[in-house]
């Protein structure tokens, strides 16, 4: 089970869906949901480099287009990986299936891409099974359709 998980998504209603789905799947003990990449950026700045291991989440799910934020999910992943220490399992959760965007995410170090839909649980369950591979950095990039 994932210890701490962060969701960055502008849709507050999806926060509830995600939290309940994760709880039902026994996927994470603690979930922190944010609706802005700016807020996530502020937190990561605070955690790095003084406290790189304790408060930062174990896994981060980022929406591709975060309305009301200064930058999108791909830029968020780039910042986490290249500016804040690259210490988390991180990937995109989005309703988009744009191959170009998927490639961009892969290039900045995203480890997975989960297609957001009404029936999210099967994909999260599959992700949960693959999670150890992501944590150990042995699993390849994967798109959960």
């Amino acid at each position, binding site marked *: 089970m994932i210890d701490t998980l962060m969701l960055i998504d502008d849709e507050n209603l999806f926060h509830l869906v995600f939290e309940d789905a994760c709880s039902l799947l026994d996927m994470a003990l603690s*979930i922190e949901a944010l609706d802005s990449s700016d807020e996530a950026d502020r937190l990561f700045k605070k955690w790095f480099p003084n406290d790189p291991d304790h408060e930062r989440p174990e896994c981060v799910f980022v929406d591709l287009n975060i309305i009301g934020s200064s930058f999108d999910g791909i830029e968020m992943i780039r910042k986490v990986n290249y500016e804040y220490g690259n210490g988390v399992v991180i990937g995109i959760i989005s309703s988009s299936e744009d191959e170009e965007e998927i490639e961009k995410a892969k290039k900045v170090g995203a480890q997975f891409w989960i297609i957001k839909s*009404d029936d999210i649980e099967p994909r999260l369950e599959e992700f949960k099974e693959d999670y150890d591979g992501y944590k150990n950095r042995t699993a390849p990039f994967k798109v959960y359709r």
Partner: protein
Amino acid sequence: MKISKEARDVLLKVAKEKRIYVEGNFLKLLEADEGDSEFQKYLDKCKEKDVTTRRKRLEITKKVQEQNKELESAAKENIRVNKQLEKALAEANTSLNDAKTAKKIAESAKSDMESALEETRLAKEEADILRIKAEQAKEIAETDLSILQKKTQTELMGNIVKVALWVIMGVGVITTGLYVFVLLYGHDSKIIESTWSNLFGILLTNSFSIIGTIMGVKHATATQNDKK
């Protein structure tokens, strides 16, 4: 995570008396001691309740999310329809403006046409006046010509009459002179006498005939002028 006996008892008591059970992710941390089947049952029940509650909430949330999506879609459709309406309204306004412009042009053309018609009417009136003047001038010219012709005819007739009278008088004088000469000198007057008498009669007759003809012509001319 294992909890103390006091905490365990409190949880069981609250569940029994108040039917309140531990919920949420904290529940995932709790563990029962080995052999403590009562607390294990309690934890299982808590988990069952938590899962039921979560599942219900998840279903409701999903429904709400779906409705939200439908509302967003409807809102987008509304925006699209509104844009179409705005576009149609703008086109209608443009058409209205075009129609107004066309109306103005038509009114201007109508005004020009009325002006042209008025000018035409005035030109026609002027033309009529000119025509009347021309006709009057023509009539005057014709009258003048007629008068001139009459005058010429009258003069000609006068000349003819004069010549004729001179001829008549000359013939009369000559014949009378010859007759007087014959009488004075005692020549044979029989031939000249009858000749003079005949000639005089013929001359008188011709003179009256000429005068009658001239008067008849004058009378006829006067009657024609009166008719005109």
